[in-house]
């Protein structure tokens, strides 16, 4: 286990050390002390290492992650795991706005609540939130799965494409072109797998699926006057 005190080492030196790890590194376990809400901790990782941050983080923690597992033992600031490509990010506390935004792959688990714009423009990432999510979540979501064990805020899935949205609790309102969908066996299977991997004992049958009504996909001449 490599232990780094962020206040002593500094952010750039820490991220440089983490970036230096290769696919075959022996230093696979890292612990970061005293994060104190700093920005961009463990950003841009590209090796199968496990980084545990002991405390709360600021903007963009674990952004652009590839292969690594990042555990945040606290709450996370805006843009956590933004544009993640692969790997796993687990937040023990709450996440601020746009968690997992534009993510292409990997799994983001938020054990507390997520704020607004969770999974905005997601492009293949899987996000599991144990608590609630805020407004405008999954806005323009293109693919991947967003699982919410609690409630969703206003305008869920506004202008979304082919992402699957699963909500166990209530949805305050659906965004434009987002609708309730039928839950088929293959969806229950996907959901069970994600819940298991995210450490949630919620039952897939308790969820409702939402997705694109596909009315905004193509130009409709009746809307010409609106442009």
């Amino acid at each position, binding site marked *: 286990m490599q232990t780094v005190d962020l206040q002593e080492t500094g952010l750039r030196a820490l991220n440089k050390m983490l970036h230096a790890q290769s696919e075959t590194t022996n230093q696979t376990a890292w612990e970061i002390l005293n994060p*104190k*809400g*700093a920005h961009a901790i463990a950003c841009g990782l590209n090796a199968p290492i496990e980084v545990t941050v002991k405390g*709360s983080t*600021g*903007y963009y923690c674990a952004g652009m992650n590839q292969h690594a597992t990042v555990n945040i033992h606290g*709450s996370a*600031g*805006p843009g956590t795991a933004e544009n993640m490509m692969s790997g796993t990010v687990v937040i023990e*506390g*709450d996440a*601020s*706005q746009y968690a997992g935004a534009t993510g292409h792959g990997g799994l983001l688990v938020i054990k507390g609540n997520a*704020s*607004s714009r969770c999974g905005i423009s997601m492009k293949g990432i899987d996000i599991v939130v144990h608590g609630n999510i*805020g*407004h*405008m979540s999954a806005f323009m979501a293109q693919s991947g799965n967003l699982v919410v064990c609690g409630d969703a805020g206003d305008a869920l899935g506004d202008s979304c494409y082919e992402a699957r949205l699963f909500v166990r609790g209530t949805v305050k309102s659906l965004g434009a072109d987002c609708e309730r969908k039928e839950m088929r066996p293959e969806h229950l299977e996907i959901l069970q797998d994600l819940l298991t991997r995210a450490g949630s004992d919620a039952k897939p049958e308790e969820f409702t699926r939402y997705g694109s009504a596909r009315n905004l996909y193509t130009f409709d001449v009746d809307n010409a006057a609106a442009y």
Partner: protein
Amino acid sequence: MCGIVGLFLKDKALEPKLGEMLTAMLITMTDRGPDSAGIAIYGGERAGRTKIVVQSDTPDLAFAGLDAKIGEVVGGRVTMSVKSTHAILDLPTGTTAKVRAALAGFEGAIRLMSRGDSLEIYKEVGLPRDVAARFDLAQMSGTHGIGHTRMATESAVTTMGAHPFNTGDDQCLVHNGSLSNHNSLRRKLRRDGIHIETENDTEVAAAYLTWQMQNGLTLGDALERSLDDLDGFFTFVVGTKDGFGVVRDPIACKPAVMAETDQFVAFGSEYRALVDLPGIENAHVWEPEPATVYFWSHSQAPTRTEKAA
């Protein structure tokens, strides 16, 4: 950007350290606003007395004998203490309007920073660290205070464009964001006789609150109404004699983090601003909901739930 910090003390034992804690929080928010900084601090209220804080770019000229001149205007005892470009004038209750009118006739382009029984506002152009040192903010005690670090977007970097803005007796406003309808709203408010000095968007928001309160609304109701009438991005923190309030626009893209313990309620644009507060590890930390007005007050038991002022 811009950074906001706020601290409301529940534990009286922390009052002598209010300035020190707020200053540290303010300096942490330098990255969000290196252009200018300001702080509103509440404390030192005395029966029969009130105070104003004034500013001049030529303090030697403006503040020479100012206490005596104002003493003549009010016909009573006036004491003054000068801190860099600012002077705090301690006046008999009920004389503020008379003094304010008289200031325009004095030399040194004296400008009013704040008025109230317990409020003092200090603000200047420069790095938060330098502004804090200039006014020795770290030595100040008080019951609660708010601070702001500015990254200017809508108007020039000047003292009068710095936050907090005084909105009424013992009331002030700081803002992170930018308003898009401030020009039309400024014209409307000026037509209604509201004094607005600069081209700054936040000054318009402050004047808007003043105007609504002059028309009989409470601060809480004025903030509720601002959600309909102000167009743009905002996280506002308002200071009152008893505490502070927070409201974010419905989109809520400007960040806000709150922390509460048995000793304090704190606001920060980022969690970073709160990390050195005592007992933060075990604090209840959360983000205020969009389009919701929150208040914490010394006159009522503080709660985590929203309530109107």
